[in-house]
């Protein structure tokens, strides 16, 4: 039996970040990971020799540069490379090429609709303005709105000041924005179907909502408020795949003295006299510690690795009802060559961005209808990227791999449990859709990994395969995340904390949840804070 200051459950990127900052403060930390690899959903795996998939998350923009810089992740081998813009494929032959150059992008929009080309400038300006306030709250612990503690009052005051500073018109807009659907929000800007579809697609990614569902408007903002080197809305690839992010954070954590144990799944969090005191591993080993930090999602934490009787009234039920519906699948495809897409210029930049097979708002909504009925759509929404077009380290020379994020895919099927045959059929729906836009695509396939929400849950432990560790709807955001009254990383059991995306500010490879949780823990343990302040670009 060993004794630690802190146990962090789950070596996802937030757990590793949390461990790094705790270890930096001098704590004796161990990270326990159930799998034989680290990274959770920020992982790179070689399932076919020579091809390195980012199996789950595949691009990033929320990664806080303050943390990247503070942990010196560049020295630990991390380099984030922004990729060029995305091509949107319409239902038919229509294409919207998101040229990298702003002037060229404008002319391309103008080709589809002169009105929308102008409106795009207004949308981008508005989104940047809306995202400013939220970006400022990312690396801050949300206040408890009902508390009278000075720090909560101060934080509420800070927030109120920022909010009022927006001005009357903007405050109304904000409230609208948080509650409306992505499609309705965009109706105010655009007339062209493909442009609307292209812009609405970030509103549904990772979410069991449709483009017409209230609340999808905020998800849209969540996806465009990230940045790469201050270029807001830009997306980047990690050289070496998303696992490079976890690996570099792990390396930083180990340099500070943290220990990382793989194949060490936690069976149960030990609670004595109302205080967390350690864990029991699946193999029966017991490890004790002063505090326990769970990087698992809220539902898994409170319903799977804690004893119901150790929890205060109501928490088990809250956790059980935590909204964490799986909605997406992931299909990773190793290719013998670069796919060519119809209706696209054949040039060196065409495939160096993403491909979004969004079709139209109608198509996306129909795909959502399938999800509601407990099946996948045969005309799915797919967001793709070919990382190997950019990154020389992830596929053999001249060969490629394509990451396909597919929506929607239900965690439970209406016609019984997921089977390998059904999984293959789901994968087939993806291939046949891509083949529609890339004749001969099928012949390039060398290997394929199809992941349904069911697989994602089983492999990396995200309940229902929800990529955000809980949906990003207003009832589960900010001081309500994961539950009202527990928005400050401290959990209902003393000495127990959460540091995953189930906490503020939610999903995305940002490393923020882990860092914010570390700051709160260090405060409780009366240790000096090691977590940097955000150094976002002034806005």
């Amino acid at each position: 039996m060993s004794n630690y200051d802190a146990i962090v459950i789950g070596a996802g990127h937030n757990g590793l970040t949390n461990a790094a900052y705790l270890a930096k403060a001098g704590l004796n930390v161990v990270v326990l990971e159930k799998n034989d690899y680290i990274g959770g959903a920020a992982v790179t795996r070689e399932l076919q020799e020579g091809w390195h998939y980012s199996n789950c998350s595949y691009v990033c923009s929320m990664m806080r540069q303050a943390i990247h810089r503070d942990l010196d992740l560049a020295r630990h081998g991390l380099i984030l490379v922004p990729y060029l813009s995305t091509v949107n494929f319409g239902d038919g032959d229509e294409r919207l090429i998101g040229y990298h150059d702003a002037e060229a992008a404008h002319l391309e929009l103008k080709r589809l609709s002169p009105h929308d080309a102008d409106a795009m400038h207004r949308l981008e300006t508005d989104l940047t303005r809306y995202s400013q306030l939220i970006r400022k709250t990312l690396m801050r612990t949300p206040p408890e709105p009902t508390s009278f503690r000075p720090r909560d009052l101060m934080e509420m005051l800070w927030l109120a000041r920022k909010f009022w500073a927006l001005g009357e018109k903007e405050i109304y807009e904000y409230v609208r924005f948080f509650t409306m659907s992505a499609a309705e929000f965009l109706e105010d800007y655009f007339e062209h179907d493909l442009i609307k579809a292209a812009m609405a697609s970030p509103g549904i990614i990772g979410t069991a909502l449709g483009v017409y569902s209230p609340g999808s408007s905020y998800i849209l903002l969540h996806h465009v408020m990230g940045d790469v080197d201050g270029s807001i809305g830009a997306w980047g690839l990690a050289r070496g795949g998303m696992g490079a992010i976890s690996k570099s954070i792990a390396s930083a954590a180990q340099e500070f003295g943290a220990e990382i144990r793989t194949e060490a799944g936690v069976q149960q969090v030990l609670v004595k006299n109302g205080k967390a005191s350690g864990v029991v591993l699946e193999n029966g080993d017991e490890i004790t510690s002063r505090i326990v930090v769970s990087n698992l999602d809220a539902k898994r934490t409170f319903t799977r690795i804690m004893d119901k009787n150790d929890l205060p009234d109501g928490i088990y039920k809250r956790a059980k009802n935590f909204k964490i519906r799986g909605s997406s699948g992931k299909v990773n495809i190793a290719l013998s060559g670069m796919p060519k897409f119809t209706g696209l210029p054949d040039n060196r930049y065409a495939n160096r961005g993403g491909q979004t097979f969004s079709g139209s708002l109608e198509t996306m909504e129909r795909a959502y209808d399938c999800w509601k009925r407990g099946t996948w759509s045969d005309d799915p929404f797919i967001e793709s990227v070919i990382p190997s077009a950019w990154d020389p380290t992830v596929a053999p020379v001249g060969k490629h791999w394509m990451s396909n994020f597919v929506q929607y895919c239900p965690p439970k099927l209406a016609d019984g449990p997921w089977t390998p045959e059904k999984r293959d059929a789901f994968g087939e729906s993806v291939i046949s859709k891509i083949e529609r836009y890339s004749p001969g695509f099928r012949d390039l396939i060398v290997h394929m990994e199809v992941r349904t929400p069911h697989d994602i849950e089983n492999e990396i432990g995200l309940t229902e395969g929800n990529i955000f560790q809980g949906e990003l709807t207003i009832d589960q955001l900010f001081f309500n995340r994961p539950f009202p009254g527990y928005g400050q990383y401290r959990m209902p059991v003393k000495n127990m904390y959460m540091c995953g995306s189930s906490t503020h500010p939610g999903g995305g490879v940002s490393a923020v949840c882990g860092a914010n949780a570390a700051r709160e823990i260090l405060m409780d343990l009366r240790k000096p804070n090691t977590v940097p302040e955000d150094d976002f670009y002034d806005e």
Partner: protein
Amino acid sequence: MTTTDPYAGERPKLTAFYPRAKELNIRDAWQVWNGYKFAECYYDGEYEYFCVRNTCGTYDICPMQKYEIKGRNAEAMLNRMVTRDVKKIGLNRVAYCVWCTDEGRMIDDGTIFKLANDRFMLTCGSPCTAWLRKASFGFDDVTVTDVTDDIAALALQGPTSCATLKKMGLGGIDTAKPFDIKFFPFHGETLMVSRTGFTGDLGYELWIPKELAVQMWDELYAAGEDYGIQPFGETATNMTRLEAAFIMPAMEFNEALLTVNLNHDQTPFELSLGWLVDFDKPHFSGRAALLEEKKRGPKYTLTKLDIEGNKPAEESYIYNDKRCKGKEVGYVTSAMWSPAVKANIALAMIKTEHLNDDLWAEIYYAKELRQYSRVAKCTRKTKPFWTPPRARATPPADY
């Protein structure tokens, strides 16, 4: 009837790679260097920067000045001109050098290639013919030939550069150590490849008779296609060289021969290039003045700064008090946000006596036509900002 361009005399000259470069310069973003048209960027400066750090890129260095220095006295002549000991340069090796006026003020920097015991190539940013003539006075057997227009030169920089050259068929290129020169037969001529560059990364420079320039480009690009090859321009060059903490004329130093106010030029010691000054060798231009300077200590010292926040400290003054009220103790020469290092980096000339003070940069920036300023703490760095192990590894990995 042929029409002649009435403006031909005033138009920028075209480099040997122009026929290919122009196809790929989608933005039509050109500048002029030594009279030659050369690219500011081809597609996007930052994209090209990332190619250099992530895959590989080519930079057209045809406009760089190249001189062949030949003869029995070539070595002695160069040795009297530059501050480094040219005798110590091995055969088929390259050395980075600076040369100074008698007052020890820096005229320019460049590289010397030792191609035979009596044959060298000198490259530098600005024309140097007149100074080379002066430097040759008193030597009987030395001839200086400007070969800038005869040799086409292309830098290939980035982690996949060695793999690209191997694919191109340059067998054994992976055994070249930094500053080595190798020769390869190329369509009846010789392709010279040096493991040199201006990006601080793994990289090479390719030297070819200009008649074969386009042929070489095509073969290089065919080989590099699967290694992410992309031309890059001045924007990316300036970003990468700053991360490597390399100096640029008209940024870090003002060429001595072009300096009106004699306090405005620099000595190698001020530029933290004291390691290039060899007092153990025979007399060289500026020796006495530099010896004195070494004894006295330089007035300014070029310093690498890591600056808090993320506003590039372009053209900032440096103070030793946070309120920035007293007299400034230095000035920033180059600054940028480094996407690879994730740091706000700068080179600055700091008064040597204040090097160990707390340093603060007063940074001005504009947002939607409004001016803002902030004061940011500076931390001195001893090593270049970007020093990947692959830049020194022999043989280098494929990426």
